[in-house]
């Protein structure tokens, strides 16, 4: 398939989902409002900690800025992780998967294209966390925005690999995806979204702290905060970048192999459209 045709198809999915979103206007405005309320809440909570920051945690001198980057990135990462499986499940539940699969388009393309709108939305809503912080609460970010974007994209691609594994589970088992439970709840606790991961080592010991080391969002968040909050450059963020590339090298071939097996199995069982 030519790249132009692929993009045309992705665009068709984006337009479709944009039109569907337009038919639920209220939901969009309520979500924007909820982000604003959440950002405002965290602003006031952060005021409790003024002057109490542990000097060991350089990224957390301003906990409000750390939380905003944490939530914005978590939102994006979770989209990368969950949107692929959600795309399959939503088409199955709507009953439209079969008609989409009747077009000359491969299953992987369907999944990638179906989740495209989720990324558009995630980009918008994740940006809103940062924009509201900057616009209403005087939070300033520094460093190389392009480098931060590169880390964000790399982390999202790594999480998308886990998302492909998750979509494979959705295809075969329909529900009960272990990756979702592990990453969804695990990332918020172990990846440093709301507090520094070093605290886990201090309070729960090194064995529990090692959990954060096997979660890709830990490295993504660390890298982005180093750039946006501490203003570090490429040389200083090499370590989280290398870790993410190692994750990618392992997960990409593994997830594609598992996914092709799952599609084959679902077609054999005739359960592709079941949920």
């Amino acid at each position, binding site marked *: 398939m030519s790249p132009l*045709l692929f993009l*045309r*198809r992705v*665009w*068709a*999915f984006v*337009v*479709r989902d944009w*039109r*569907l979103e337009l*038919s*639920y206007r209220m939901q969009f405005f309520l979500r924007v409002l909820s982000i604003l309320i959440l950002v405002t809440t965290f602003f006031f909570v952060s005021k409790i900690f003024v002057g109490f920051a542990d000097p060991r945690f350089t990224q957390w001198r301003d906990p409000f800025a750390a939380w905003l980057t944490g939530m914005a990135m978590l939102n994006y990462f979770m989209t990368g992780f969950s949107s692929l499986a959600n795309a399959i499940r939503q088409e199955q539940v*709507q*009953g*439209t998967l*079969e*008609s*989409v*699969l*009747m*077009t*000359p*388009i*491969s299953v992987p393309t369907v999944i990638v294209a179906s989740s495209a709108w989720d990324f558009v939305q995630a980009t918008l809503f994740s940006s809103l966390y940062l924009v509201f912080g900057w616009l209403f609460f005087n939070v300033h970010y520094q460093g190389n925005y392009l480098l931060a974007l590169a880390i964000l994209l790399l982390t999202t691609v790594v999480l998308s690999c886990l998302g492909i594994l998750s979509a494979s589970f959705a295809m075969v088992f329909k529900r009960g995806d272990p990756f979702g439970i592990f990453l969804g709840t695990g990332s918020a606790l172990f990846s440093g979204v709301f507090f520094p991961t070093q605290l886990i080592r201090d309070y729960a010991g090194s064995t529990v702290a090692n959990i954060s080391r096997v979660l890709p969002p830990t490295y993504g968040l660390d890298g982005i905060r180093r750039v946006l909050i501490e203003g570090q450059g490429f040389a200083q963020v090499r370590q989280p970048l290398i870790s993410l590339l190692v994750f990618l090298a392992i997960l990409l071939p593994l997830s594609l192999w598992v996914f092709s097996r799952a599609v*084959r199995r679902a*077609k*054999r*069982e*005739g*359960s*592709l*459209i*079941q*949920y």
Partner: protein
Amino acid sequence: MSAALFPDDPSIRTSNGQPVVFVERISKTYPVPFQRLKKLLKRKFKPPVEAVRDVSFEVREGEIFGLIGPNGAGKTTLTKMIATLIQPTDGNVTVKGYDSVHDDVAVRRHVGLAGAEERSFYWRLNAEQNLQFFARLHGLSSFDSAKRISELLRLLQLEDSAKKRFAELSTGNKQRLSVARAMLADPPVLLLDEPTRSLDPLAAARMRAIIKSLAQDETKRVTVFLTSHNLAEVEELCDRVAVISKGEIKALDAPRNLRATHSDNERVSITFTVDDAEKVEAALREAFSTHSFTLGRSDVSAAWMLAFSRKTNDQTLDTVLRVLHRTNCLVKGVESERATLLEVLEHYEQPDVIGTESDSSSPDPSPAKEENPR
């Protein structure tokens, strides 16, 4: 199975077309999910469901091919295997030379499927937006898709519904939109599942005319694979019909050949006028010593209607006409009706027929199931 699996009967009008769809010894058994695990855990599980068994046929360019059978016979599974949505357990399906498993994308480029499932559209988008989405997935440019959608909306008389949300369309219009979607990319093969099911009689007649014209159009020569429970429609439209029961093709031939092969009886009705009906009745009783007949007033005023069954080509009709002539009757009309496709279908659903024609190597055939439970 009756003849004409691969048609060379010159009476079949489309037999000069090139074969487009090849179905070669395909079988489909839905496996038990996680069977080995269930065995290991000693959990009970239902046996695998054998939906289609060793089915072979071909469909030619420009042919309208019908598939009839009761619910659960395997029609949907067979259609979905041609459409690449389900993989066969054994055998091959090729469409325009492309294998349905290894070249599935290429097969879908040549096939349009109009199913009976209403939920296959986006209910909050309007009819036109739905078609636009699917047209783009078929790779049509913005300009081409707009032109094609406009043509199809006009052809299927959906212009007034173009801007209506799918949820607001009548059941018949939803059905028509499904056919429009199948035709978006102008595919050479159309798989139609009960295309007139929810249509009013006028719309149904128009749909049948459209289907006929697609197949007969010399520039397009669209091949139509039609599954339907409307046997009159199948008989009217189809060049050949396959009867499927318990996952097996029991017969495949032109409708009139099927009827002739599966029943050598015909019902004859004669309308006549006469002054002395009692005399006619007495003469008929004498002539019909071994046959039964009914004689009564016709709907036409002053006319009588005589009805009886006979073996095709026997002497009964000639005898009766002579009796009527001898008793001074004025014959107004003679109508004969051969077995219908319903009778053909019923024939194959009789337990002894299925028992004798099933594959003896499978002593315990699992019940065929058309759709998996969700």
